[in-house]
């Protein structure tokens, strides 16, 4: 209502208490209401992006160095990028695997988490508090043996169901789903709690069943948090090394995910190939940023407010 979702520009400026002085001190007012925000944002961007500049620099540097490099290398080269796409390593298939696994698993994780959050938010049942606590605590166990345990489980699964066992993308996706209930469930539950129950109740009065309420009322209203949880899961899965290495790390190199492939590539016995690694990592970050830009309108949309009014 106040912001045009398509352009992000205000169609009707929101007045704050101090804006009465707008006519007399335009700049001072701007600084007080918006200007400082831009200042803080620029500082934060500087902090966030400064190390990234160095990664970019390393990716164009012909020397495989990280520590003592200059911001602009003496000579620029695309060799590091060429190595990724020149057939030395199956980088494109790592990329595809990662998008497929992380995308699919994140969507399923978000769904499973939303289902559980709905139950925790809307229903009162015995064991609810214990369940909530367990969901939070189970992921706190130190993962020292995660690699060994998951590896041994997936070896056994492979013997029974080869298509979802060790070395398969489906297998890795299933392993990831194990982490669906967790802190994200809490995040969603907190959000669900803020949707007034009167909405559910009036829907029930109209004859809606519990799953209709969930799919047709709750989910659309909670799009921002679904987007956030999807994004968080996606980022987590793209960065995961331990589980991906346990499930896929022993197969054909074409089956690796980005983190497994890049790590293998970097970690020669003595050599450290920082250049291609920096290039590969930068490119790996792109889907996340694109996804975020795409999801932003859901994350910060005014859907909730509209719904509450309705």
């Amino acid at each position: 209502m106040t912001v045009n979702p398509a352009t992000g520009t205000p169609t009707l400026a929101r007045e704050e208490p101090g804006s009465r002085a707008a006519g007399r001190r335009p700049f001072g007012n701007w600084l007080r209401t918006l200007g400082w925000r831009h200042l803080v944002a620029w500082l934060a961007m500087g902090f966030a992006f400064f190390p990234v500049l160095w990664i970019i620099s390393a990716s164009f540097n012909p020397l495989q160095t990280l520590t003592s490099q200059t911001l602009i290398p003496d000579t620029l080269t695309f060799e590091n990028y060429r190595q990724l796409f020149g057939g030395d390593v199956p980088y494109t298939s790592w990329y595809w695997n990662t998008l497929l696994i992380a995308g699919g698993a994140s969507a399923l994780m978000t769904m499973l988490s939303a289902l559980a959050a709905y139950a925790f938010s809307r229903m009162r049942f015995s064991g609810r508090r214990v369940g909530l606590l367990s969901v939070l605590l189970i992921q706190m166990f130190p993962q020292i043996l995660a690699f060994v345990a998951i590896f041994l489980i997936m070896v056994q699964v492979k013997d029974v169901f080869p298509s979802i066992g060790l070395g398969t993308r489906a297998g890795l996706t299933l392993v990831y789903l194990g982490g669906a209930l967790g802190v994200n469930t809490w995040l969603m539950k907190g959000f669900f709690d803020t949707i007034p129950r009167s909405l559910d109740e009036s829907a029930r009065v109209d004859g809606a069943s519990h799953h209709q309420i969930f799919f047709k009322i709750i989910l659309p209203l909670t799009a921002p948090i679904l987007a956030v949880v999807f994004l968080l899961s996606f980022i987590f899965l793209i960065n995961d090394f331990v589980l991906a290495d346990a499930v896929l790390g022993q197969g054909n190199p074409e089956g690796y995910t980005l983190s497994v492939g890049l790590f293998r590539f970097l970690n020669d016995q003595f050599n450290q190939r920082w250049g291609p690694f920096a290039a590969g990592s930068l490119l790996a970050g792109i889907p996340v940023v694109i996804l975020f830009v795409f999801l932003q309108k859901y994350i910060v949309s005014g859907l909730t407010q509209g719904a509450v009014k309705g």
Partner: protein
Amino acid sequence: MTEREARQVQDWDAPPPENGRGADAPRRFSLTWALVAKVLFLGAVNALFFVGLPAMLALEWWAGIAVLTLSTVLFNWAYLTKRNLPGKYLIPGTIFALAFQIVPVIYSGYISLTNSSISHRLSEEQALDNLTSRTSNVPGTTRFDMSILSDPEGTLAFFLVDAGGIETLGTAEGQAALSPEEVTRDEDGDVVAVGDYAVLGIASISERQDEILNFEVPVERGAIMAVTITTAAVYEALFVYDEATGQLTEVATGVVFEPIDGVFTAADGQTLDPGWQVFVGFENYTRAFTNESIRGPFLRVLVWNYVFAILSVVLTFAVGLGLAVTLNRPGMRGQKIYRAFLVIPYALPSFMTALIWAGMLNQQFGVINELLGADIPWLRDPNLAKVSVLLVNLWLGFPYMFLVSTGALQSIPSELKEASFVDGATPRQAFNAITFPLLMVSLAPLLIASFAFNFNNFNVIYLLNQGGPPIEGATTPAGHTDILISYTYRLAFESGSGAQWGFASAIAVLIFMMVAAVSALSFRRTKALEDLA
């Protein structure tokens, strides 16, 4: 109408209304659709059960059978009965958590009660097999060129040519002289058959490898055995196993080894690796508590661990929430671009970025000192190293807090804020009184989880500075930025004879108890917050 009113007051705890009766048309349609999906899904689950169970039984994979059976029962119970509404929503996620979160935790718990380590990794059978198959080349004996033979019944034999060119036939009975007419050769002079025995092709050799490797042609001392598919030599066993007594005897010395605590041990205490994994009860836990070297710098490490975890949460949350609130202002230009940039630290692999930071903080060659024109020992000075670790962890962690805060801010109804403005509250007052408490409803548990995560944040500690700089004069190698997990990891994986999974798991269980206790206590306090909503 009365029925509807009744439904309205119904709590969710009660069974939902009977679906078949009094339903209007669209509802029935969606019910049928849901029913088909449900039936297909349950059918697949049950089919999986009936396919998987026999295979699992054959493998005697009890944990798998337990999980599969439990899952199948739970699914059927949840979706075939009308009761148990929460179960319909909770069970799918729970099943996966059971298989891939809880089972690994149980596995770690089980390992913590065993002596599992590098030299106690195998089963008893595998360890025994390893020791009894050890042989040594009998000194002063010849090597043979060999062809592997088999008669029509499948009995193996070796056609042997010694260094002097003398041809013999090796069978399970022993070495026998050969007359030239017994040996059939092809036009190239290669042997194709010896008497009834024909030379085996590579496919058959490949198939019968174990048999061939175990095939012995007894000679005066030891036996002729295959080395490759074309050579053989004389070997004798190093150890002889007596099944009746369970003892292993070293042939050369006559020393007798008894199986004690998962390893063959001689009377003088000498042991034979590999041993095997056995149950040792709470020995690993006792060791964790009584161990002198752990106790050395333990307190120091523990205190820093809490400081690190708490400050990491506070700093990342303060910065993340601050930025979220700052940018959450309708009408602010460039919001989208700002936000996208702020997410970038989180989008790049932390493995890469932590190492980039280590390089930037390098005292002599790093860019930070270069820009400052200073010579600051960021990673070498004990206090500065702690600041550096926190700084890097802030960089790595604030985008997460920024994202979840931004998401959570959307749930705060703007009417509430507007109402407070009408009451004359300043934005700050409105934030403190309305926004922040509401945010904490959904974010408090995340902060607890973040605390737990950072408590065990091995990666950032290890990648940035390996826990360094070292503590001078410590009884056990430890660093000023070491946290419990990085410190004990070294003890469990780098001490003595290599990885000690049993001990490592015991430590993991103990650390988990510490973190879980703190988290559960904090969690109790969130109950009050939850009731606000």
